[in-house]
């Protein structure tokens, strides 16, 4: 087993799939010669050539349009959107076309496109390099939405996504590319090679899309989250000493409601955490389903801990970020009531 950070794990996933299947290619802005601004496609150009690690003009809508056409013609394009903040020009192609093609053609056509997009804050990128737009895509029928929280699962999920015949939008929390971030910005970040989930097999393996993971068993309250916030929630649980059950969703759509249900029906309390803005974020859907499925087990209102309903600010990253403190406070609030 190798030690890999998330970038290396994603790279390994793409490398393996390109090696096994000549129909797999990566494409996007600066992904070719340079290997991507976050280096996720590093080396693929050299190994597979310019036509398989394909640099592209700066037009996310155009990239998505051609990716769909390629998918229809038998390829399996992996599109990198340089920052998820720049996915909006491609939304029409994603939501109106990619997501609905199989359905509208009565099953005749489909395009197995994977869209990789670094998301979330933490690099002082201001409002246009920090967004978490996953919620929007969960409202479009026909897309699978994934967000991993560690290298091991990132690789397994990305391979599963590439081999999936449905379109998958794969958000990568860029703040944890190099190491898990527990929300304490005064602490030196620990690299992935000191973390068990930084142990990543070199070979091909998959993690099933649509399955959540119970990361920490607990009995008092269920904390549901995904991506970077998994680590913050984990630290909040540890540091607060609360006996919380932590669920890493990993896949947002299809949502693994069974795992969630089993947990909340046990704990009777629930806190939903994400970095995206509050209103109409995916947390609202999680909360809704928990309420619908577990109402009679709930001992306290389900809480949401999220980014504020403002653009992501440059100067106030830490105040904006859903902190350990806010998660802990939310857990405690749920525990207060009986």
């Amino acid at each position, binding site marked *: 087993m190798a030690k890999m950070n998330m970038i290396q794990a994603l790279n390994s996933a793409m490398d393996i799939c390109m090696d096994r299947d000549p129909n797999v*290619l990566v494409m996007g802005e600066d992904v070719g010669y340079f290997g991507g601004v976050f280096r996720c496609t590093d080396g693929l150009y050299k190994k597979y050539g310019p*036509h398989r690690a394909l640099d*592209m*003009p700066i*037009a996310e*809508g*155009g990239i998505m*349009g*051609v*990716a*769909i*056409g*390629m*998918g*229809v*013609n*038998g*390829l399996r394009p992996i599109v990198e959107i340089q920052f998820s903040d720049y996915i909006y*020009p491609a939304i*029409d*192609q994603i939501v*109106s*076309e990619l997501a609905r*093609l*199989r*359905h*509208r*053609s*009565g*099953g*005749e*056509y*489909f395009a197995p496109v994977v869209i990789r997009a670094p998301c979330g804050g933490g690099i002082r990128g201001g409002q246009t390099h920090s967004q978490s737009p996953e919620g929007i895509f969960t409202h479009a*029928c*026909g897309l*699978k939405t994934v967000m991993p929280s560690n290298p091991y699962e990132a690789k397994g999920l990305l391979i599963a996504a590439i081999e*999936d*015949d*449905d379109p998958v939008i794969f958000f990568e929390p860029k703040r944890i590319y190099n190491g898990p971030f527990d929300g304490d910005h005064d602490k030196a970040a620990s690299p992935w090679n000191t973390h068990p989930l930084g142990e990543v097999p070199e070979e091909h393996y998959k993690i099933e899309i*649509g399955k959540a993971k119970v990361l920490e068993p607990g009995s008092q309250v269920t904390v549901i989250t995904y991506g970077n916030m998994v680590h913050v929630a984990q630290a909040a649980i540890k540091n607060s000493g609360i006996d919380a059950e932590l669920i890493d969703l990993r896949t947002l*759509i*299809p*949502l693994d*409601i*069974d795992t969630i249900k089993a947990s909340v029906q046990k704990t009777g309390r629930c806190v939903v955490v994400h970095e995206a803005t509050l209103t109409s974020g995916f947390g609202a859907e999680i909360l809704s389903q928990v309420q619908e499925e577990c109402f009679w087990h709930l001992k306290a209102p389900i809480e949401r801990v999220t980014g504020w309903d403002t653009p992501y600010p440059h100067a106030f990253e830490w105040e904006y970020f859903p902190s350990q403190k806010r998660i802990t406070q939310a857990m405690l609030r749920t525990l207060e009531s009986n």
Partner: protein
Amino acid sequence: MTDKQTVDTAIQYQSKLFVPQASSRPETTPDFSHIEIPSPIASQRPDVLSEAVDIQDLAYGLVRVLGDDHLVAGPWAPDLSADKLLLGLRHMMHVRAFDNRMFKMQRQGKLSFYMKCTGEEAVAVAQGMALKSSDMLFPSYRQQGLLFVREHSIVDMMCQCLSNAKDNIKGRQMPIFYSSKKHNFFSLSGNLATQYSQAVGWGMASAYKGEDQVAVSWVGDGTTAAADVYHALVFGSTYKAPVILNVVNNQWAISTPQSFASTGSTFAARSIGLSIPGIRVDGNDFLAIYAVTQWAAERARKGGGPTFIELYTYRTEGHSTSDNPDAYRGKNEANFWPLGDPIDRLKQHLIAIGQWSEEQHQALQSELTDDITKDWKEALAHGSLDNGPHWPVTSMFEDVFKEMPPHLVKQSKQIGA
């Protein structure tokens, strides 16, 4: 202006904003006399691998083959047998008979919607015939002729329009939003222009795999303004994708004249600055369209990249069954259109070369009309939108994903409850 007081009603602007005009409006008389119609011998037929900028005259001219004498002339005259021409004529007449019937059926409440391509039949039919059946088609909604050329079942097309139990897309889309993988005919989208860049991607994949197929796509004049058209041109040119990108300039986009999209130039000229040859062709001249399409396909197959073709034609009827053109354009503007009717022109040509007669034409017309009537009856027997039979209601939940995820299984159970 949040409160009333701050509204300065005294402001009166003297607007200098330029707003394009229409060819005609109900209160004016149509006049197309400014349109220059060059003779068939006026256009060069350059080498298929020419540089776009070197052959830009083709973007500002009008490639024609059929002259006013109904005979062929000029360097673009294609090598087409009389049989092929007769087949083309038949397809065009078939499409028109189909359109007329379906339009009437919509008016009688049998269909929820319909769109004709009257006056533009040559576009899809001639282009379809100039391509290989392995070439992939990414049409807009007015190229039903392609399906006739590829011998799609007419009954099945009708079943799609009826959303009945035999509709291959399971009642999911409005009438005319065909999809036929068997015929390399891409699933139509209601969102204008999206298929254009997809066609480029398809062509890129063809080149990526080292294959020979060409992708062909169509948009209307109005649709040229859409972002995806630009994306198609930029990506198509950047990767020299084997694609043919067509603009069917039928002068109108619903109520909006082509002047709101053409920027006072020809559409064909738009691609030159992107190193893609632009060719403007008489869109009612079956032979010219065939020839230009052949040229473009050859260019694409030889690695020359895209060609941008403006098919200069006229939308003789309303935009769709939802619209009445008399509300926004001069009465009978179609009658003023100087390039005639594509069926009539090919018919006259075939008569002029002694391969056809009025009588044969009438007979064919009747035959096709009868066929369509027969097909319609057969299609109706498979069900109609209002009365069914349809696909089972729960089929709605299929194909959202390849395998139905739990939340859709749950919803599909609820729908019966």
